[in-house]
């Protein structure tokens, strides 16, 4: 009895954390390269739609995976073009892309499934005989998070990526193509965040399904001090609070709303400097124009 509850709690925590953790990792790659991306919320939304529509019409989870990641990459590409090439304000582009994400998914849902607010049920949710939601959630903790750490801190690509986020002038003077590096950061981050959208709910898409998880991912990233593994671990805090609410005993004694608000309060406390100190990359969100 005790064991089943604990196992249930662990499994729900991992599943609830995964979309947030992927968004946080996506945020790490974006911001380490110097681009602030609040369109992570929109990326979760379009990639979850991409998965459901791709799998439903392609009749295979693989097509779902393909279109889910494609949708997220496309939105990231627009963000990169707007912020890196045209150098518009990163928050502005993010706000616009989140609006576009809401519009495009609802529109396509009506055209493809005949209903604006939700898709038809997709039954292609298994990969290698495993439930894809569980598989992708495990993948985050066992593979993607360590891999991201290795990529960012143990390879020369990672070093270059971080250098354009910290000091683009210096990176430029060393012959690193700042714009190309920032595109790389935004696109890798977008692909990773797309996996989060796929892990959200593979069997059906609903309007508003991302429910602010992209923003919470950004908060996890800050809690994790822009470090890949720490950011993913920070996301489990939100996932755990989510999972706790599913347990009857807890629901009985603690108001649901308090449990929901707790992680956000915690982030504010951390930001206030009561626990640890948050330090963003130095050129985060600053457009780089040569010779200025």
């Amino acid at each position, binding site marked *: 009895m005790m064991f089943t509850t604990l196992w249930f709690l662990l499994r729900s925590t991992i599943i609830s954390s995964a979309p947030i953790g992927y968004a946080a990792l996506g945020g790490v790659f974006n911001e380490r390269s110097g681009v602030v991306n609040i369109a992570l919320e929109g990326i979760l939304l379009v990639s979850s739609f991409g998965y459901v529509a791709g799998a439903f019409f392609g009749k295979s989870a693989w097509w779902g995976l393909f279109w889910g990641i494609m949708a997220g990459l496309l939105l990231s590409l627009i963000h990169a073009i707007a912020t890196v090439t*045209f150098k*518009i304000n990163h928050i502005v*582009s993010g706000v616009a892309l989140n*609006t576009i994400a809401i519009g*495009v998914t609802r529109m396509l849902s009506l055209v493809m499934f005949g209903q604006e607010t939700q898709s038809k049920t997709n039954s292609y949710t298994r990969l290698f005989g495993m439930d894809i939601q569980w598989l992708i959630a495990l993948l985050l903790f066992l593979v993607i998070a360590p891999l991201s750490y290795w990529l960012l801190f143990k390879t020369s690509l990672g070093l270059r990526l971080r250098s354009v986020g910290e000091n683009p002038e210096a990176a430029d003077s060393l012959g690193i193509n700042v714009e190309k590096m920032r595109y790389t950061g935004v696109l890798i981050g977008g692909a990773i965040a797309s996996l989060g959208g796929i892990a959200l709910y593979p069997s059906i898409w609903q309007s508003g399904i991302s429910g602010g998880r992209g923003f919470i991912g950004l908060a996890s990233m800050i809690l994790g001090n822009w470090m890949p593994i720490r950011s993913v671990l920070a996301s489990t805090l939100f996932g755990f609070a989510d999972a706790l609410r599913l347990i009857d005993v807890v629901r009985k004694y603690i108001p649901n709303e308090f449990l929901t608000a707790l992680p*956000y309060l915690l982030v*504010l406390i951390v*930001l*206030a400097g009561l626990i640890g100190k948050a330090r963003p990359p130095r050129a985060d969100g600053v457009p780089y124009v040569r010779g200025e």
Partner: protein
Amino acid sequence: MSSKRSNNFKYFLLSLVAPVGGILISALLLFILILLIRKGSLSDTIQAFYIMWKTLTSKQDVGYIIARSEPLILSGIAAAIAFRAGVFNIGTEGQYYIGGLLGAVYAIYFSFKSPSLHWLNVILVIVFSMIGGALWALIPAILKVKKGVHEVITTIMMNQIAYTTAKYFVNGPMSGLKGGESLEPKTMNFPAAVDFKRLYDIFHGHFPFPKYIPLYESLFIALIVVVIAYIVIYYTNWGFELKMLGTNPNATKYSGVPPKVVIFNAMLWSGAIAGIINLQEIFGIKGYYTHHMTGGLGFDGIAVALIGYNNPIGVVLAALLFGFLRTAGYNLQFELGIPNSTMDLITGFIIIVMVIASVTMNRYISKLRRKEVLSEAGDR
């Protein structure tokens, strides 16, 4: 001298390129989208544009456009004040939930029940709501000036907490549901003396005022806010300090104006105005408070402020554009079955195109100006 004037005119025309070009490009995208949705039927697409045009000529629709623009005007002004100081108040979203909640607390527990005190009630609802919005902006403002924490992330957190807080009060202490009357969670109903519906009757009773214009208390308040914001921004010291801080923070340092104080005030006033964004829906339409009200008005306001160049008059025009797009979207869905969410897509697209165009044009204009100054210097 005359060449200088013609130059100024040229710059004025160049500054119009971004908004006009943005709208034209977006209209083209809309055309293509509708053509795709209607599977290449050109006559359907032309009819769709005719339906959009008809929205502007129908009196009832004009009323809807104004009613839908009203919250966006307030939301746009709230965002614009913060933008002017170089601050991103993404938190207007949560601030209007809390502002409305505090207004509802006044209406339910403290309001005057006598109909003759209606106007006092209206003023106090506004005061309570403004305090609510400002309170919700207080923590991000303090963290910003004391600890240098970026306001975007703190206001996003505050948004999430605002929604849960509203939900807690609606379902808990302020719940108006007795034994499953309705599935929609809501607070107790407000007394009749706080309804925001009086002004309309007064105007239509005594003046030959067009009936389709929804001149409720809330619209009147929005217009007053626009006028005050315009005067404050362009004719007061504080407005000048805001502009200085937003455009050249370094100059501010040497001018003796403490930037932190200006930023702090800008965030609190932005929050205070955000507090009254949705009073129309809460006090004019519903007559009770619920966390299930129109969401996203804060984010829309950010877009409105951007498209309106943070100028109160520009904000009104941009809000009307949004109101029009939304109303036209409903008509398109109703008459042609084209999803009205297409308009969300177009709205987002307009923002990106217009901001890209204006950034590029500004760079071009400053290049022209530099050339002009150099050539003048050469003449001497």
